[in-house]
């Protein structure tokens, strides 16, 4: 059972992977990218997330490899700390507290004891470091001021001899040795020809004194001879027609990479205008470009939250795709009943299937199936509505394009799930299903219904019922959708539609009036009218509350009607923005909007008193919400939390952050597989690995059993933690061999009674303590052995301790014991 804490609103993945440049490991095996408060480590080959480095309490703003140890990674965050990680094991090594918001981080091999950060006063600082675990870094020295916050606008060149920074129309170059700054200015916007001369990004040549700068008008300038304010010179490369988003030199400096809104990666060879190569059709604006230190890979981060790993020969080799948040969401949040994936608008014209558990996009379904032309001011076809029906067997989508008031292009598509291909296949395409925009779309999801039924409501005043019929001909058997019934009510616009849980009733709202229709005969059964404004949301109660119908109006009234008595059961004043029923319980979640923020109410239709209220869940407008059924039900006993037992509620705010409610503390919540994997690293974590890994574990268990039966405690090396740790801990964090040797031997000794083994060292310890405290160094050795053997036998205590820490710990222990002895 989980300990019950307060329910908190937490971010649940879907954070930007493209916020900063991704960083490659030295061997190009891993790629690191910032993701909200975490740093994610991906394999460049399999695209799988290997580790999530968590520890920062705010947005991570910069990551860099430790130039002196390429197995370590620095990260900085808005929380004012710099952390040093062992990324292979996912261990936090050190934390440096700077104290002010850090916007970007740079490391240099030449500046051994310092790193460079951008702080809020718009100045990068130097910060010396000491070697203890948590240290406050106070020695800051300012290098440059009046710079841009984005790390794209700073670059270190020629092995740290100078740093270049751009902002607006200025390029500043600071020389560390001379401690001088040269500043170069481009003619500004007053001149029409140079109106878009602004600098956007900068990069430095790895071996030559050459600075490349990108500009708003798509030009790339290569600056040379910039030691002299007068003799400086530059040359232009111009291919991009829109702003240059990022630049990067290859490791040897022979080619320059650039990217922008054209979604084309351009490689300029030898920095000449005529010699360039392209990698087109990358899908979305290139935001960042980075190059692996080994030189074999490039990667581009895109505005649709995607990282593409590209081979040196300009062939895309892997795609790491997060939740696409590029555009506005029309379809709302849906759950695919089969994969339990979150479904919403993705890339232009696509539906994306996003796995909430693994924070990963599963796949894209191309709905519009037309080439997307990325141009400003072009009116695109928008995917406006989508709905799943019949347990995920059917998917209905609506797309529209409205160039002028009178010219509406509308298309409804019905997709059938194909078990063979494990995907949706277009079954029926209906042109202009209505004369005007479709406002609502719903399937009849009743279990007993023999015929799939779909209802669409439109602004043209009609709702239409579509049913699946036989469409076979002499060539093949086929099914297709046709219109079965058209209903209307006094020419009012149909705004919402909803089937009851058993599928017997259909509720359609016509502006202020709710009509109830029999789904068998399509007779109008009754109408409800509250004169409280147009109906915004409509839904039936579920399970025990299925006799209730709920409607939220635009005037801020929530009504509940009893379908048996055909009367208003209760109403409440609540400006409901989002109303979602839980498919697994009677609960309904409503999010209301006020000037301060959004509040959540969870209630059952049967009683007007809410089960749970959480005020101020978000400062911004909440746009969509959805209940996601849990795989394993939780068991909250507290009444207030019971609504979270079967399902989890996710919602999406206007700024497109995906949030949910959680009771766990973040440390608990983050129990990824990484820690279990830790012991058996070396293998890349592929899906096969998971299967095989489990398989092997089972084998091991079986083996153990048999061994236990047959032999008397023959120690299996695999099962002795001390040895497994010794074998699996990376070499660079291992203590000295002399120290390990005794530990290793100790662990191999057949201890008859583990208990006695545990007690003996304690005795020794006490004796030693009595003897003398001067011979520390001699004692060191034995004590360490005991320590490690203890930890080895014990469950899981942190075992990698530095000498000084060990000493300290021992002191504590000695103090403790003396105190006991005194007693």
């Amino acid at each position: 059972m989980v300990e019950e804490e307060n329910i908190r609103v937490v971010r649940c993945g879907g954070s930007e992977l493209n916020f900063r440049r991704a960083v490659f490991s030295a061997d190009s095996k891993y790629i690191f990218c910032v993701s909200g408060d975490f740093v994610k480590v991906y394999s460049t080959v399999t695209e799988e997330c290997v580790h999530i480095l968590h520890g920062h309490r705010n947005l991570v703003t910069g990551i860099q490899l430790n130039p002196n140890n390429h197995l370590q990674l620095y990260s900085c965050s808005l929380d004012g700390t710099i952390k040093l990680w062992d990324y292979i094991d996912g261990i936090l090594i050190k934390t440096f507290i700077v104290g002010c918001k850090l916007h970007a981080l740079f490391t240099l091999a030449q500046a051994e004891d310092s790193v460079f950060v951008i702080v809020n006063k718009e100045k990068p600082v130097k910060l010396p470091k000491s070697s203890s675990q948590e240290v406050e870094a106070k020695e800051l020295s300012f290098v440059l001021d009046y710079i841009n916050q984005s790390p794209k606008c700073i670059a270190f060149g020629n092995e740290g001899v100078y740093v270049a920074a751009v902002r607006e129309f200025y390029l500043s170059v600071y020389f560390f040795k001379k401690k001088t700054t040269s500043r170069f200015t481009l003619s500004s916007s007053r001149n029409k020809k140079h109106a878009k001369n602004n600098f956007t990004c900068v990069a430095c040549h790895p071996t030559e004194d050459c600075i490349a700068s990108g500009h708003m008008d798509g030009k790339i300038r290569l600056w040379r001879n910039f030691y002299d304010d007068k003799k400086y010179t530059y040359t232009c490369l111009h291919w991009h027609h829109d702003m240059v988003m990022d630049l990067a030199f290859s490791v040897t400096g022979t080619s320059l990479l650039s990217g922008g809104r054209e979604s084309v990666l351009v490689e300029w060879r030898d920095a000449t205008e005529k010699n360039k190569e392209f990698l087109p059709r990358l899908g979305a604006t290139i935001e960042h470009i980075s190059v692996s230190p080994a030189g074999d890979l490039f990667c581009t981060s895109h505005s649709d939250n995607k990282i593409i790993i590209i081979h040196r020969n300009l062939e895309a080799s892997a795609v790491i795709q997060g939740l696409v948040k590029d555009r506005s969401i029309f379809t709302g949040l849906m759950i695919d009943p089969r994969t339990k994936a979150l479904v919403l608008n993705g890339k232009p014209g696509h539906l994306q299937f996003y796995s909430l558990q693994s924070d990963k996009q599963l796949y894209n379904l191309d709905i519009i199936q037309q080439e997307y032309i990325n141009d400003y001011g072009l009116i695109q076809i928008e995917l406006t509505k989508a709905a799943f029906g019949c347990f995920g067997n059917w998917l209905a989508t609506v797309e529209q394009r409205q160039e002028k008031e009178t010219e509406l292009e509308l298309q409804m598509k019905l997709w059938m799930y194909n078990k063979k291909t494990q995907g949706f296949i277009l079954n029926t395409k209906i042109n202009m299903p209505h004369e005007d925009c479709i406002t609502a779309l719903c399937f009849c999801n009743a279990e007993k219904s023999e015929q799939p039924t779909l209802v669409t409501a439109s602004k043209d005043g009609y709702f239409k019922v579509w049913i699946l019929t036989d469409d076979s001909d002499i060539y093949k058997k086929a099914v297709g959708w046709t219109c079965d019934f058209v209903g209307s009510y006094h020419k009012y616009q149909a705004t919402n539609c909803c089937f009851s849980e058993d599928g017997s009733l259909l509720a359609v709202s016509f502006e202020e009036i709710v009509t109830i229709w029999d789904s068998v005969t399509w007779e109008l059964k009754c109408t409800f009218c509250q004169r409280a404004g147009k109906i915004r949301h409509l839904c039936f109660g579920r399970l025990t509350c299925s006799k209730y119908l709920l409607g939220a109006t635009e005037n801020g009234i929530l009504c509940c009607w009893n379908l048996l008595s055909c009367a208003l059961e209760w109403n409440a004043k609540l400006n409901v923005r989002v109303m979602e029923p839980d498919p697994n319980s009677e609960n309904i979640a409503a999010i209301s909007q006020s000037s301060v923020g959004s509040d959540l109410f969870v209630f059952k239709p049967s009683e007007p008193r809410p089960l749970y209220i959480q005020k101020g869940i978000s400062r911004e407008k909440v746009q969509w919400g959805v209940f996601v059924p849990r795989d394993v039900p939780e068991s909250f006993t507290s009444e207030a939390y019971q609504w979270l037992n079967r399902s989890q509620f996710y919602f999406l705010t206007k700024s497109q952050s995906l949030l949910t409610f959680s009771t766990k503390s973040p440390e608990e919540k983050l129990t990824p597989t990484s820690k279990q994997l830790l012991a058996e690293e070396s293998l890349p974590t592929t899906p096969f690995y998971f299967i095989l890994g489990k398989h092997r574990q089972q084998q091991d268990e079986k083996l153990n059993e048999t061994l236990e039966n047959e032999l008397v405690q023959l120690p299996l090396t695999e099962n002795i933690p001390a040895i497994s740790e010794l074998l699996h801990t990376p070499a660079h964090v291992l203590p000295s061999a002399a120290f390990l040797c005794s530990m290793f031997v100790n662990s191999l000794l057949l201890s008859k009674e583990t208990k006695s083994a545990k007690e003996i060292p304690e005795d020794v310890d006490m004796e030693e303590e009595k003897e003398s405290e001067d011979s520390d160094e001699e004692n060191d050795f034995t004590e360490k052995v005991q320590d490690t053997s203890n930890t080895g036998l014990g469950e899981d205590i942190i075992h990698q301790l530095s000498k000084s820490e060990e000493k300290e710990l021992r002191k504590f222990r000695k103090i403790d014991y003396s105190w006991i002895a005194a007693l």
Partner: protein
Amino acid sequence: MGEFKVHRVRFFNYVPSGIRCVAYNNQSNRLAVSRTDGTVEIYNLSANYFQEKFFPGHESRATEALCWAEGQRLFSAGLNGEIMEYDLQALNIKYAMDAFGGPIWSMAASPSGSQLLVGCEDGSVKLFQITPDKIQFERNFDRQKSRILSLSWHPSGTHIAAGSIDYISVFDVKSGSAVHKMIVDRQYMGVSKRKCIVWGVAFLSDGTIISVDSAGKVQFWDSATGTLVKSHLIANADVQSIAVADQEDSFVVGTAEGTVFHFQLVPVTSNSSEKQWVRTKPFQHHTHDVRTVAHSPTALISGGTDTHLVFRPLMEKVEVKNYDAALRKITFPHRCLISCSKKRQLLLFQFAHHLELWRLGSTVATGKNGDTLPLSKNADHLLHLKTKGPENIICSCISPCGSWIAYSTVSRFFLYRLNYEHDNISLKRVSKMPAFLRSALQILFSEDSTKLFVASNQGALHIVQLSGGSFKHLHAFQPQSGTVEAMCLLAVSPDGNWLAASGTSAGVHVYNVKQLKLHCTVPAYNFPVTAMAIAPNTNNLVIAHSDQQVFEYSIPDKQYTDWSRTVQKQGFHHLWLQRDTPITHISFHPKRPMHILLHDAYMFCIIDKSLPLLFMDLLDERTLVAVERPLDDIIAQLPPPIKKKKFGT
């Protein structure tokens, strides 16, 4: 109604000819420019880029190469196979000498200036020794298979590089034999072109040879080993010219797309001595082929088919950021090609090989200031006078009464008498010109059209009396003993008593026409005279110099006027001094002697700035005539430039 009625004349279809080569002389800071019609012009870069001298062209002389040697001596060579030397004092051709190698494509003077090298059609490279008054053939180098299109000396004078079709040869000067032959890649963007023409080579002192070719490449070769070091593909079309700075730290190339690229020798890193050539800035000041480039210490100079001569200053080399540091484009000649008959409202236009006479249109309408008046009578093209022979016209003039036209070529002087009978015009050549009137640099009629003043290229000034259909030679002012400087500007006073004449450098001489003797000499000024005129009544001589200074000199008093002295004391307005085109004409308001009307190529005082103004004069006190030449019309008459894909079209 405004102060003036202005005739805006746009029917002067003048097209300057394209620039073929330029040669920069570092010693005198002068630039020699040759055009496709054979004209050679000398610009003085110190004197506000003024075109101080010109040598008229000749149909059969297509200049292909131009170079300065032995300090101030100017040589040219062309497709007629001749090497010519120009006399910069007397403004004529000293001699022409056949090289006997077919058309000459290239010429280069040795670093010491004592030897001249020409590359010929038949593949021969010929070495000439420059003697004080002539050149003398010395020897032939090893003959190559195809024409030698470009030549360059090693700064030590021991080796030369010669660019040909598909290869570059390196010669040893002592032995005259080819040391290396470097084959140039024909590949052009992956497609094999028929031939790769090496349009230009440059030999640097460290042994590097830079070549530019028709495949759009700039290539660096090591002359010691004969190997290609580096190649820059810079254009989709030919790269036609190259010029290296004297310090060898930068060079400039011009392409057929109209782009000029600047290359600089830049240190690889700040703390290493290793340097590399880097393409830096492209300049697109031309619409057509850039046929030739030059590199002065402070500027890149380029010229081409689009007839513009462009001076692009190098900002890092310019000490003071004044108006000298601005880009300059010279399109029109700095002399008057138009003369006007005030009495009959006629305009005489001078072209390279013909003259055109037009009668101005007239109107009866009146309007407010700034109105465009409708023409009641259109302008008439009265006469089209073609010259005989291949030589270009040097100068021309129509008399104020409109009944005489005079023009001159290098070898002949022509005088015509015009008779007007209603709308018909009859033209009669005055024959039997005296032998000394062979060629003239400047012709001027007196205000009453009775006298003709001719400045001949021997430095003499002739006065000819005109009466009826005949003429009489009155007098010749011979130049002062010892000087051979040609007079190229004349001005006569309206009362006909005074004649002012100016040469290219010395002061202005004022002659008394009545007494036929030298009256006085205006003190010499540092900058050449661009225009002068004598005011009516007061007989003040107004002189404009190329640095935009204007002096007023009283002829009767033989001294500068008070106004001129005060102006010199106070100085002109800086906007006036910053104008970069010289004043080409001065005239006076007949009723208001205080007003002086000045114009240069773009501006008449401050009236018109938008269109190039070639000529402006007062017809009478209320009427002004202005001849304009829109640049777009010139470009429309040029051959089409290389088509380039423009983004977004």
